Each structure stands twice: as C-alpha cells, then as structure tokens.
C-alpha cells in the first residue's frame, strides 16, 4: 500500500522529493566516508541502504521511487561517453603494456564469468538469476548492458555489481597483502578487474600508478565484455 500522502503527491513534487533525497544521501555518505573510511560507510553501500529505509518507512514502492529518481539512470549514457577520456589519456600505457593488459583482462573476465556460472549452478541458482550474476565484476553501465544482451535482469545485475564492489574492496586489501605480487601493474589490475569502480577507488589510495592503471583497466575490461556480449547477441 502506497502512503496516502505520497500517492496524492504531485508527480513533479514526487520527482523533486526522491531526487533531492537521493542526492542528499549520496553527498552525506561521501562526506561520512571521507571522515571515517570504514567499508560499511562506503557510499556504494550506505546510500542505497539509507534510501531503502526511507522508502520502507514511507510505505512507498520501488515504482514510486523510480518515477521520482529514475531519470538519474539516463546519465549513465553520457558517463559512458566520458570513459573515452581515461582511455585516451593512458594511451602511452596501453601502447607499452598492451599484451599484459590484454592477458589480464581476458583471464580475469573468463574467471569472473566461469566461476559465477559454476558456483551459481552448484548452489542451484539458474535462469535469469544466474545470467544476471555473470557480468557482476565490471562497472555498472557496462554490466547492465551485458546483462540485457545475454538475457539477464539489468537491475538485478546492478545490485550484484554493488555487492561485488563493496566486498571486492575489502577482499582486494586482503588479497594484495596475501598474494605474492609486487608490480603496480598487477596490483591495479587485481582491484580494477576484481572490483570495478570500488576497486579503482582503493587503487587510487595505494598510489598514482596503481590508480591510473586501475582507472584504465576498469573501462577497458567493461568495454571488452560489452563488445563480446553484443557480438554474441547479434550472432544468436
């Protein structure tokens, strides 16, 4: 049951309310995380959690929320266009290290898709749910696109991408101390290919070199997955 006050709300007012709330919680979460960098306060986790609490308290539905704040998703389009800039700015790195970058992306992507499929099957998950899990290691705009192409549910994929980001950032720290890797190339690659944007944010904290490698790889690995999925969808 939608809240009586909310369902009588003017649509423009509802849009203003849910949009302002989303932006306010996002800015608040960013500020809190800057002050206390604990993983539970990651804006990636905290912003949706706060919004879910408000939606539930107001007895609103996902539909009500989407009517109000769904327009923000449109901005993923121009954001994807913006990914051209880090690719261009890191062209020297691509020219120098392309075989290593390519090996890492292909091996990482095959592992992501293969282990998701295998573990999901072992645990009895199947159908659209299993398909929605496959692209969870790449950045959201790419992952939602891949999910669409292979017959998953893009919104579910967005949820799984966020979970991968939150836990991947924590796992990344553990793996980097535990794994016998020393090169900044490998450290950046682990974080970007394992945990997309959240991993890239961690890589930026490790160092400038790790950060730029991660920023580039996060985009390239997403692009690689989208192009392969598009090709598969076109052939099918």
């Amino acid at each position, binding site marked *: 049951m939608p809240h009586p006050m909310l369902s009588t709300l003017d649509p423009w007012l509802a849009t203003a309310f849910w949009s302002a709330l989303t932006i306010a919680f996002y800015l608040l979460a960013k500020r809190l995380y800057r002050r206390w960098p604990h993983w539970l306060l990651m804006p990636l986790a905290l912003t949706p959690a706060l919004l879910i609490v408000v939606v539930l308290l107001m007895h609103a539905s996902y539909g009500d929320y989407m009517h109000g704040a769904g327009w923000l998703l449109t901005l993923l389009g121009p954001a994807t266009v913006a*990914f051209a800039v880090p690719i261009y700015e890191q062209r020297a790195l691509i020219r120098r290290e392309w075989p290593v970058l390519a090996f890492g992306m292909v091996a990482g992507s095959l592992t992501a898709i293969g282990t998701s499929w295998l573990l999901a099957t072992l645990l009895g998950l199947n159908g659209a749910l299993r398909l929605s899990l496959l692209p969870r290691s790449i950045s959201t705009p790419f992952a939602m696109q891949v999910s669409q192409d292979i017959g998953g549910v893009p919104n579910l994929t967005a949820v799984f991408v966020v979970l991968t980001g939150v836990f991947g950032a924590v796992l990344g720290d553990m793996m980097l101390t535990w794994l016998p890797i020393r090169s900044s190339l490998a450290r950046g690659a682990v974080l970007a290919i394992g945990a997309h944007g959240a991993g890239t944010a961690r890589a930026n904290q490790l160092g400038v070199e790790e950060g730029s490698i991660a920023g580039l790889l996060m985009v390239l690995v997403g692009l690689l997955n989208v192009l392969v999925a598009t090709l598969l969808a076109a052939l099918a």
Partner: protein
Amino acid sequence: MTAHHLSVRFRYGLRHSAPGQIVFLGLIWLFSQEVVRATGLPLTGGIVGLALVLLLLATRRISVLSLRRGASWFLAELLLFFIPAVLAVLNYPQLFGLLGLKIMVVILGGTVAVMGVTAMTVELSGKWRARHAASHALDA
C-alpha cells in the same frame, strides 16, 4: 565578429567550464543515440559516443582539454547515476533470505578467484615479457 572568432571563443570557454563540458558530453551522447536509431547498430549510444570521442581525440579534431573536466565529473559521480537501479532489491524480498546467502557465496568466491587469476596472469606475463625483452636486447 566572424564565425571563426566565435568558434575560437567557444573553444576557449569550453576549456575552462566544467558545466559546459558536461553539457557537451551529453550532446555527444544524444547525437550518438540518434546515430544508433538511424543505423540500427546493435550498440548503445554510450558506446558509440565513446568510440566517436576516441576517434575525435586521436585525429586531434578536439582537444582533451575540452572534455577533461566534464569527464572527471561524470566518472567521479558515477555511483549517483546507478543508485536508482540498486533500489530494485525492494522488488526482490527473497534476496534477504537463503537465496541472498547463496548469491553472496557466488560473489565472494567468484571475486577471490578473479583477483587471484588476474594477479598471477598479470604478474607472470609481465615477468615473461621483461625476460623476453632482455633476451631480445642481448640478440641485438
């Protein structure tokens, strides 16, 4: 004021204005959406726009200075734009039970595997390449 003069002023203004660059990226995306609609390409406007911008940058038709500030903004605030999709969990209350636990196992197990394999691949292929380059240097 000539057209050339205006174009110079426009470019100069664009290099110093983050909001201008944000709008510029939005316009490129809208144009790319139209290209996709007109040609029936199986790609999204975002991907076509990305390719278009890379092409313009590589051929020096536009300077990276005309895009850098706007692009940084889009990349820094990326999270804000997909939050509405994440709230879709509200439609799947079953995710908060055993099913959610299984999904967590898939995500945690898969992520550890991805990180391990990526680390070993990049580290080993990097070392192999360094050795390869060294032996080539000896040949020469």
